[in-house]
């Protein structure tokens, strides 16, 4: 976990030097997924204009499988909160959507050329997810 934590900080801190932003976005998705899902492979569903181009990078990773809908997925990164879905780990791609859906696990989106990550405190507590101290700045 410590490795993952440092990796996340390193990735965020150095993102501005990365030439391929989509690759960087994919790496952040991988790190968030590994924090929330403790089994492999992790099934990911992405339905967002922000992250559509990250799929090609995620597909290359052996531990991640891309799925077509939220039902089959362990974790979803979507613009709008899916209907009739309960108990899933959903990350929304805008702060506005996140504020509307209290059941969402958090938000991850790209704004002004920078990443914004928010971890839902209520979700973390109810799902017994351990967030490292270093990540506590992202929790609200």
């Amino acid at each position: 976990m410590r490795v993952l934590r440092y990796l996340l900080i390193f990735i965020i801190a150095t993102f501005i030097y990365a030439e391929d932003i989509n690759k960087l976005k994919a790496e952040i998705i991988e790190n968030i997924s590994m924090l929330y899902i403790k089994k492999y492979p992790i099934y990911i569903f992405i339905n967002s204009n922000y992250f559509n181009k990250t799929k090609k990078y995620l597909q290359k990773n052996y531990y991640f499988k891309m799925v077509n809908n939220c039902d089959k997925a362990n974790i979803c990164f979507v613009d709008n909160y899916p209907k009739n879905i309960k108990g899933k780990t959903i990350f929304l791609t805008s702060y506005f959507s996140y504020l509307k859906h209290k059941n969402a696990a958090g938000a991850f989106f790209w704004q002004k050329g920078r990443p914004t990550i928010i971890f839902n405190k209520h979700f973390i507590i109810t799902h017994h997810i351990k967030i490292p101290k270093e990540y506590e700045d992202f929790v609200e």
Partner: protein
Amino acid sequence: MNLKAYLKKTILNFFIIITIIFVLIFILLKTFENEFYKEIANIEIAHAFNLVYKIRQIINSKEKEKNRLLNYLISNDVKYIYVIKKFKNKLRYIYDGSPLSQRAIYLQPFEPVNKKLWQKLFISKSPVFETNKKANGIWITFLYPILKQNKIDKIIVIDISLEAYNKFKNLLHLFNKLFLIISIIVFSIIILMNFFMFRLYKEQFESFIDPLTKTFNRKIFETIEKENLQNDIVAIFDIDNFKKINDTYGHNAGDIVLKQLVNIIKKNIRDYDYLIRYGGEEFVLLLKRLNKKYAVKKIEQIFEAVRKTSIDIGNQKINITISGGVHLEPHKEKNLLEAIKKADQELYLAKKNGKNKFYIYSESIDNKIFNLNDIIESIEKGNVTIYLQPILNIKTNKIEKFEALARIYHNNKIYLPCNFINEIKKTNVYRNFTYIILDLVFNCITHLQKEISINFFAEDFYDEKFINIIEEKAQKYNNVLNYLTIEILENEKIENIKELSEHLNKLREKNIKISIDDFGSDYSNLNYLIYIKPDYIKIDSSIVKFVKNEESQKIIKSIVLLAKEFKATTIAEFVEDKESLEILKTLKVDYIQGYYISKPLPLNEIKKIYLKNSITA
């Protein structure tokens, strides 16, 4: 230095200079580029400061749609404008003038990426900025703190677009391209100038080259005359018997010999040494920056290479030899030509003393030729003496005669006549020198009462007055002429042998004996036996030296027979060992002389050794 070496040196220098120029240009451009970006970044920061005033006005106003008003400040250069506030240690957006797609909502959390910059802001409580060329569309992030009761209340964030950077970057690229084009033009001009300079140099260079041998000609002295000769060595060479090669094999063969000699010498010298054709078959070699000891070895090496190499002249191969004179300290002379002149004197001696050798001129070497003034000074001071070399009668085994050999003292060194006699010949000094020698010889005769021979040139007796001088000098002594033998030296062909014969007969009338020196060598002529009618024939050292060879023995045998026919006594000089003595005994030579019997000694020592032992060998 040859053309190839010059080319090599020039091209190398040229490339070094060009490389240095380009490295300097690159450093200059990079420095300029950095300074340029710093300057335009400063302009953008100044622009951001101007915006801060307007932003503060907006956020302090009572307007409801502050985000929309902030958005009006967005331009091509300014990408995002937003205001951040700290709530319970968490940074949140309070205003955002960014375009709608990128606009954050009120109290949306803000997580700074460049944390160090934000820390710096909170510590300094003053505006900070950071430039980053690779940011996602952002070049400069500018943070301006709004203070309330000396605490940071809000932070204005202005992101300057990368487009502003690229705008200047394109301008800089244009400038770089322009600079590159100018550099290429300048570079081309330099190359062109070099090319023309090289052509000019080549033309000038070719005027210094001898067309036949491709060595330098005498014109090169105008250039090298100015060079520092410290640590240089100058030598002059001459092909032995070159006229004979031309006469025997033709002038084409002569040309081939000259070219081949140059090839041999060039193989043994360095690129920056000068080989100059000084005259027909005469070459001057200027060895640059060479240790004296090594220089002598180098000259020996050249001589050896010439001796060993057979030259193909078309139909056959011939071997040549060279003679040379070397000056080890040319810098001590007035100029290079003066040094060559000194080396040339040594060449003359080398030629005279048998060729195929080189002599070295140096003040530090004993065989230095001193000038006429030194000789006059030494003679006037009476620094002249004679040494006597015993001559042994083989039959009686007794020392019966001596040969007188002149010596001059100068600066605590002894000099042989061969070192200076040519300098003083045909001068009054020579006459004075003769007076002194005759006095010394007559003095020795008086002491020893033995026959003593003395060398004179045949040409000395062309003048009848010379005989009178001998007679005048003898008058002071008692009965000395009976013991005197005149050895006739021939350094050139005797032109008027009849006249000489008449003068020598006058000497004979006064009981003076006549000897022919070096019989069998260069100018010896059999008819001298008829006209000179010698009492003694001195067999030349070049024959006696090889007495162990059958051929030499045949010659000596013939000379002995010939001498008997003319009632002359034979003397063999240069006897250096017992074996030679024994052979000469069997060949019936009458007298012998040489280091085996004794080296030349002063009168005092002769008296001590030979008078005590009744002059027995």
